[in-house]
C-alpha cells in the first residue's frame, strides 16, 4: 500500500514535469514554425513601410526600439522606488514593525493586480489630466507594473543578508547609510537578476501599453510621442486577415521570445558572475 502510494505520486510528478516541458515546446514550435519564414533582416532593421500591414515591405524596428525605450525608462523608475523602500523596511525597521508589514502587504497586492488594471488606471489618470497616449505614459504605467516585482525580489535577497555583515560595518562605527552602501554591493547580483526578470515581464506586456503608450509607425523622438511596442505589434498583425501579415506576427513573437530568452540567460549568467565577489 505504501509502495503504491509512492509509485502513484512519483508518476504524478513526472507527468507534471513533462506537461510543462511539452507546453513550452509546443509554444516555441508554433512560434518558430510559423514565424521563421517571415523573419527576415528587414523585419528587425526597418520600420513599417507603406502598405506594411497589407503584406508589403517593412519591419518592426519601431516596436523593438519602442519596447526597449519603454522598459528602460520603467526600470529606472522602478529602481528609484524599490531600492529605498526595501532598504528602509529591512534595515531601518525591525522585523516586527507594523509599518514594514503594511508596506510588504501593499506590494503583495500591487504584485497581484492584473496588468490590464494598471493600463486602465493609467488611461483614466491620463484622460483626467488631458494627456494623450505617449512614451512617458507607457513608461510610468509599466514602471508601476514592475516596481512590485523588483521590490519583492529585492526584499527576498535583503532578508537573507547575514547578520554579521550588517554588524561588521556598524561595529566599526559606520552610520546606517554607510552600512547600506556596503550591503548594496552584496545585493548587486540580486538587483541585477531582479531587474532583468522585471525587464522580461515589462517588455512582454501588452495590456499596460495598449491605452497608455499608443501605437505608431515611427520611432519616438520625444517622451510625449506615442510609441510602438512588440506585444502590440503582434496583436495588430495577428488581427489582420492577410496570411502574410499573420506570419509576421509570429515572426515578431519570435523576436520578442528571443529577446526575453537572452535577458533571462544573461540574468543567470550575471547573477552567478557577480556572486563571485560576495562573501
Amino acid at each position, binding site marked *: 500500500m505504501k509502495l503504491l502510494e509512492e509509485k502513484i505520486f512519483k508518476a504524478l510528478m513526472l507527468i507534471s514535469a513533462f506537461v510543462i516541458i511539452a507546453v513550452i515546446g509546443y509554444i516555441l514550435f508554433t512560434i518558430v514554425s510559423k514565424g521563421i519564414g517571415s523573419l527576415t533582416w528587414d523585419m528587425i532593421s526597418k520600420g513599417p513601410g507603406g502598405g506594411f500591414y497589407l503584406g508589403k515591405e517593412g519591419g518592426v524596428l519601431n516596436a523593438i526600439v519602442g519596447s526597449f525605450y519603454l522598459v528602460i525608462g520603467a526600470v529606472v523608475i522602478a529602481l528609484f522606488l524599490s531600492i529605498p523602500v526595501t532598504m528602509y523596511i529591512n534595515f531601518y525597521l525591525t522585523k516586527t514593525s507594523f509599518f514594514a508589514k503594511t508596506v510588504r502587504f501593499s506590494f503583495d497586492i500591487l504584485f497581484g493586480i492584473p496588468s490590464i488594471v494598471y493600463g486602465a488606471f493609467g488611461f483614466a489618470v491620463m484622460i483626467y489630466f488631458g494627456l494623450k497616449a505617449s512614451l512617458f505614459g507607457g513608461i510610468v504605467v509599466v514602471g508601476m507594473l514592475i516596481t512590485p516585482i523588483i521590490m519583492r525580489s529585492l526584499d527576498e535577497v535583503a532578508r537573507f543578508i547575514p547578520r554579521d555583515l550588517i554588524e561588521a560595518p556598524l*561595529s566599526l562605527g559606520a552610520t546606517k547609510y554607510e552600512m547600506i552602501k556596503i550591503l548594496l554591493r552584496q545585493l548587486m547580483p540580486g538587483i541585477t537578476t531582479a531587474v532583468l526578470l522585471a525587464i522580461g515581464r515589462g517588455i512582454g506586456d501588452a495590456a499596460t501599453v495598449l491605452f497608455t503608450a499608443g501605437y505608431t509607425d515611427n520611432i519616438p523622438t520625444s517622451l510625449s510621442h506615442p510609441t510602438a511596442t512588440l506585444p502590440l505589434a503582434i496583436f495588430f498583425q495577428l488581427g489582420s486577415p492577410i496570411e502574410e501579415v499573420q506570419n509576421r506576427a509570429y515572426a515578431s513573437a519570435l523576436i520578442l521570445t528571443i529577446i526575453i530568452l537572452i535577458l533571462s540567460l544573461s540574468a543567470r549568467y550575471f547573477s552567478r558572475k557577480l556572486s563571485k565577489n560576495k562573501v
Partner: protein
Amino acid sequence: MKTDNLEQVETISENSIIDIMTHSDIINPHIRVEGLNLNIGENHILKDVNLSIPSKKITCIIGPSGCGKTTLLRSFNRMHDDSPNVKITGKIFVDDENIYDEKAQVISIRKKMGLLAQRPCPLPMSILDNITYGPRIHGAWNRRKLYATAKHYLTEVGLWDEVKERLRSSPGHLSIGQQQRLCLARGLAVEPEIILGDEATSALDPISTKKIEELFVTLKKDYTIVLVTHTLRQAKRIADYIAFMYMGKLIEFGTTDQIFNHPQKQLTKDYISGYFS
C-alpha cells in the same frame, strides 16, 4: 597576579546560592558596568550585573550557553540598539562616560571598540579596502596614508607577508583563520582602545586559534581586551581576569588564578571542574 587587589564587597541575593560579587576597587577600570539589566520582551536576560573590566588586561567572560555572556559583551558597544523589544536599564561607563546616556554618540562609542565576531565577516571589497574601510568612513582619504595604515595593521596581525601580493583581490579566497586576522586588523585600523571578542576563535582550526590567542596576548599592552569564550582552557591560557556568569547573573569575578584554583562560590567550582557546562 595580585589577588589582594580584589575585594569581595557584598553579597546581594539572600535566598540562593547565586551571589554576586562586585569589585569596585579594580585599579583603573576601563569599562564599568553598574546595575545592568537587560530584557528581551518578557525574558530577563541580564540580571543586575555589576562588573569592572581592568584596563590593558585580557578579561574572559565564561559560562554555560545561554547565560548571557554574549549579550553582555554586545551591550558594551550598543549592538542591541537595533534589536526589537530590548530594554536596557543600568549604566555602562567607558572611560567614565555612560554609554547609555542620552547624549552619548553611538558612533564614537563603537569607534572606541573593535568587535571580533564568531565567524569572520570580510566586507564585499578587496583586502586593502577592507582594512581601510574604518579609517575611510571616519574621514581619511589620503591614499598613501591609507596604504601605510593597511600595511601597519596587516603586519601587526601577521598577515602582511601572506597577502601583500594580492591586496586588491577579494578576501573570499583567504582561509578562515586569515579572514579572522583580517577582521581583527580591520577593527584595529579604527584605532580603538578596547577589543571585544565574541567567541572569536570557535570557528577556527587549532593553529589559527593559537595565532589569534598569541595576538591577543601581544595586543594587551595597548588594548583592553574582553573575550567571551566557551572553552575553559582558552580562558586559562590567556586570561588575566575571569568573569563567570550563570543564568544572566555575574557569579564570580577574579584573577585567573583565583577563579581556577580558589573559587569562592560552589557554582564556579562546579563549572570549573566540569560538573556542568
